[in-house]
Each structure stands twice: as structure tokens, then as C-alpha cells.
């Protein structure tokens, strides 16, 4: 029982990280109608930036995280301006290939600078006691280290807890931003009809930049959480979570923001539970199998809307 809870919580935690990344995919798809396959590598850049900042002696953890977010945000906007904007009216395939090219560019730049070996990432909450420890037959301990020699039947690490809380706060903030602010409404309008949005006086290019900025900032946040939970970083760190988050976005219905959140969390839970109960080697295969089944049953994903065009 306790082990199930532990798997489930870890799954939710991993899933919240996927959800943060998936939000970037889905928002960019919704607004620029393109799949930004370089999004996963933004995570890697975020991870390395925070890693580098933290290894300098003077830089405190919080500042390293801020630097990571700023670098990713700027990078996302610059990539859009340099690589994607000139292709605004090009066929989707050209944009897709460009995105893959940007992805390889970032990976190879990282290879050049950091080398191919994985490096140890120090968790941003290193040294802190676990969030929750349950010892057999005793009251649960919060934020406390279990006495040495005792045997814990359930431990939820600080990293796991932090991932869930941070993701939740970010998702609530993002939902409020989109539904309550003028800039958020402008994003929804651009997602639906760029021309009509322009006729309202909305700066479409500005809105697309803002979307890339937000998506990349979320990717940076995800990178910090992910590298803290799974404390390694290499130039390929971003690719698998990137693909999984893309699956999560499709799973939830690409273009749908709540869909990305639900898809991400579900994916994380499915992955962790299959690792625990079926096979850790097959867990990725199971994740993709579930995607295929969902798409066969509901081609638009869980929350994806059918497009009805009224003429």
C-alpha cells in the first residue's frame, strides 16, 4: 500500500514536470501553429545554465535559478525571431525541419562546451530533510530527518514535493494570466484567428514572442525541478523529456492548456506505475502504447476540440 502511494506521488511529481514542458509545446502550437521540437533542448540549456551558475562560488541557488529562467526566456524569443519568424508563411514541413535543426544546433553547442559525459547536478534543495517520512507504527514526520537506524515505510523527498508544488503554482498562475489579463485574452484571440486578432489591434508578432517567452520560462523551471529530482545533466538531457512532454501535449489535446496539464500528470503516473509494476525497461513503450490507444479512440486527445468552422 505504502509503496503504491510512493509510486503514485513520484508519478504525479514527474508528471507535473512533463506538464510544465508540455505547456510550452501546446501554447506554441496553439498560437504559432508549429511544433517547436527545439523545446526539449531549451530544458537542457536551462539545466546547464543553472548548473554552471551554481558551480561558481559566489552565486546563490535562487540567483542561479533566476539566471536559468532569464537565459531560457531570451533564448526562446531569439530562436523564434531568427529561425521561425522568417518562415511564418512557409509550409509547415519547412518550419518543422527548422525546429529539428535548431534542436541539433543546441545539442551540439552543448556538446562542444560541456562534453558528452553526464555531469552531476546538485539538487537545489540538497541537504534538506525529506518532505514526509512515515516510520512503521509512528506518526508521520514532516520536514524532518528520521532518526538513524529506524526504517521508513514511505519517504517523499523534498524534490518530489517541490516539483508538485511549484508546478501547481505555475499552472494556476498561467491559467489566471490567460483568462484574466488582456495579454492572455490576446493570446487566445491570436490562437483562434490571427487576421481577426490583428483587426482588433493586437500585435500578433508580439503575442507570438510572448508565447515563446512564457513557454521557455516554463521549460527552465521544469529543467531545475527535473535536474534536482534526477540529478544528472548532459547535452541529451532534454530530448527524452521533450518527446514525452510532446506526447503529453498530444495526449491532452494539442493546443489545449488544461489538456497539457492533465496529459502531463497522467503520463508521469502511467510511466511510474508501469516502471514499478510491469517492467522498468518497457515503461517508455507502455507510455507510447497508451498514446496510440488514446489517439485511436479520441484523435483530438483528451480535451482537444473538434474544429468546427462556420462559413
Amino acid at each position, binding site marked *: 500500500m505504502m509503496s503504491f502511494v510512493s509510486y503514485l506521488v513520484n508519478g504525479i511529481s514527474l508528471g507535473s514536470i512533463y506538464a510544465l514542458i508540455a505547456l510550452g509545446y501546446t501554447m506554441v502550437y496553439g498560437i504559432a501553429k508549429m511544433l517547436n521540437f527545439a523545446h526539449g533542448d531549451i530544458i537542457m540549456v536551462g539545466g546547464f545554465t543553472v548548473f554552471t551558475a551554481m558551480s561558481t562560488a559566489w552565486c546563490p541557488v535562487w540567483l542561479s535559478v533566476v539566471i536559468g529562467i532569464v537565459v531560457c526566456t531570451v533564448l526562446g524569443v531569439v530562436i523564434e525571431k531568427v529561425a521561425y519568424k522568417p518562415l511564418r508563411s512557409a509550409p509547415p514541413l519547412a518550419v518543422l525541419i527548422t525546429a529539428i535543426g535548431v534542436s541539433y544546433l543546441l545539442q551540439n553547442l552543448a556538446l562542444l562546451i560541456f562534453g558528452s559525459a553526464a555531469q552531476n547536478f546538485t539538487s537545489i534543495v540538497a541537504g534538506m530533510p525529506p518532505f514526509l517520512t512515515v516510520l512503521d507504527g509512528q506518526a508521520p514526520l514532516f520536514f524532518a530527518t528520521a532518526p538513524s537506524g529506524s526504517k521508513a515505510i514511505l519517504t517523499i523527498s523534498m524534490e518530489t514535493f517541490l516539483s508538485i508544488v511549484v508546478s501547481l503554482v505555475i499552472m494556476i498562475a498561467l491559467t489566471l494570466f490567460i483568462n484574466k489579463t*488582456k495579454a492572455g485574452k490576446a493570446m487566445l484571440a491570436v490562437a483562434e484567428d490571427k487576421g481577426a486578432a*490583428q483587426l482588433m*489591434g493586437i500585435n500578433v508578432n508580439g503575442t507570438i514572442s510572448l508565447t515563446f517567452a512564457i513557454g521557455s520560462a516554463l521549460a527552465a523551471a521544469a529543467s531545475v525541478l527535473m535536474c534536482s529530482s534526477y540529478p544528472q545533466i548532459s547535452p541529451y538531457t532534454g530530448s527524452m523529456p521533450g518527446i514525452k512532454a510532446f506526447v503529453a501535449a498530444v495526449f491532452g489535446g494539442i493546443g489545449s492548456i488544461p489538456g497539457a496539464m492533465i496529459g502531463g500528470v497522467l503520463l508521469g503516473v502511467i510511466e511510474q506505475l508501469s516502471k514499478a509494476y510491469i517492467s522498468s525497461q518497457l515503461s517508455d513503450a507502455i507510455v507510447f502504447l497508451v498514446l496510440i490507444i488514446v489517439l485511436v479512440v479520441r484523435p483530438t486527445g483528451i480535451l482537444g476540440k473538434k474544429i468546427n468552422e*462556420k462559413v
Partner: protein
Amino acid sequence: MAMLSIENLEVYYGAINAIKGISFDVEQGEIIALIGANGAGKTTILHTITGLVGAKRGSIMFGGKDLTKTSAHKIVSMGMAHVPEGRRVFAQLTVYENLMLGAYTRKDKAEIAESLETVFKRFPRLEERRTQSAGTLSGGEQQMLAMGRALMSKPSIILMDEPSMGLSPLYVSEIFDIIQEINKSGTTVLLVEQNAKKALSIANRAYVLETGKIVLSGDAKDLMNDDSVKKAYLGE
């Protein structure tokens, strides 16, 4: 000086010359109709005026500025609104949200609230449906929403593209009445219509377009009695 003045406008779609050197003026307070068959270039002209399509040559002077050199999103705040063909309301958003997007470039909250009230007075049905998503409205209601949304920017001139398209005859008459009311309350109207009869019946002046050129222009009443117009566009 005319409020909106178009001079030698040429527009291309790739190699295709859609607008072949058109000039016309719109004076303050007028209703001007652009009529013509499908593919004559009526919609392209409106799209070029509000910057959705780029011009190859020529100028579009409005408020002392050449709109061909102005970014599309800055045109609304200069006092020009565009009700696009096919209405293009934001289907996923509510009626209220659509209207507020119409006021996107305005800052003063009290003035926006005032405009909203005016729009609701003109289109009571929109007030009844304010929390409904725009995609669930009927065609006529969507047309009203598109017009209301344009009015929310408090324009001095409003461009309307095929407002009667796909509507029942009852709605068509209602929409044309509303266009006249909007004009009477001080807004200049540039109207593109395939329903030439209706358009000429409310317009002051009109221009007849054929494959990217103006072939005829004059007082709407005169054009209504013109034999070639009668034959080609009025079905008489």
C-alpha cells in the same frame, strides 16, 4: 480633403495582379459601396486598407498617414474598424470577451463601459447572450457580434465586408437598417457587398469593380438606374 483616399493601388497575390491601379475617395459621413462579382477584388481592397494584405504600389491615406506603410495592429487605434468577411468572431470566446477584444486598443475603462452599453442598446440580443460562446450564435447574431466588436473600438470609419452573406432575408434587412443607423450616429461606412441592390439602396456613392479595376462610379441612385449595372448586378 477626403477622409480616406486611395491612390493607384496595386495588389498582387504572388504573380497574380488582383488590384490593378485603383483610386477612390471616401468622404466623412458617407456610406460608400463597392460592388462587383465574386473575384472582382472587393475583399482584397478592404484587406489592403487594414493591412492584412500588403500593397505593391500606390497609397492609402487616412488620418494623415499612409496605411500601406503602417503596421496592421496600429490601424485600429487610428479610428478604423473592419468587420471581416465571414464575420470571424472568436468562436471559443464568449460574446462579452469578443466585444472586449474589440476595445483592445482603448485604455479608459469608463469609456469602454459606455461603448459596451451603446452596443448592447443597438444589439439587445448580444446582451442576452453575453456569457455564451460566440461559436454557438446563429449567423445573423454572429454578424451583429462582429459589428458590435468593431464598434467597440469607437471607429470614425468602419469597413464592412459582405455583411449580408449567408443570412436569411429578414436578417439582411435588419443588418442594413443597422448599418444606416451606425452611419447616422456619425460613423463613415465603406461597404463591400454582393447584394448590389441592398447596398445601392443605402449608399451615397458607389464604385463598381470588375477584375481588379473600377469600371463605373457615381451616385448610388444613378447607378441603380444605369442599364449596365441593372443587367450585370441587379438581375433586371
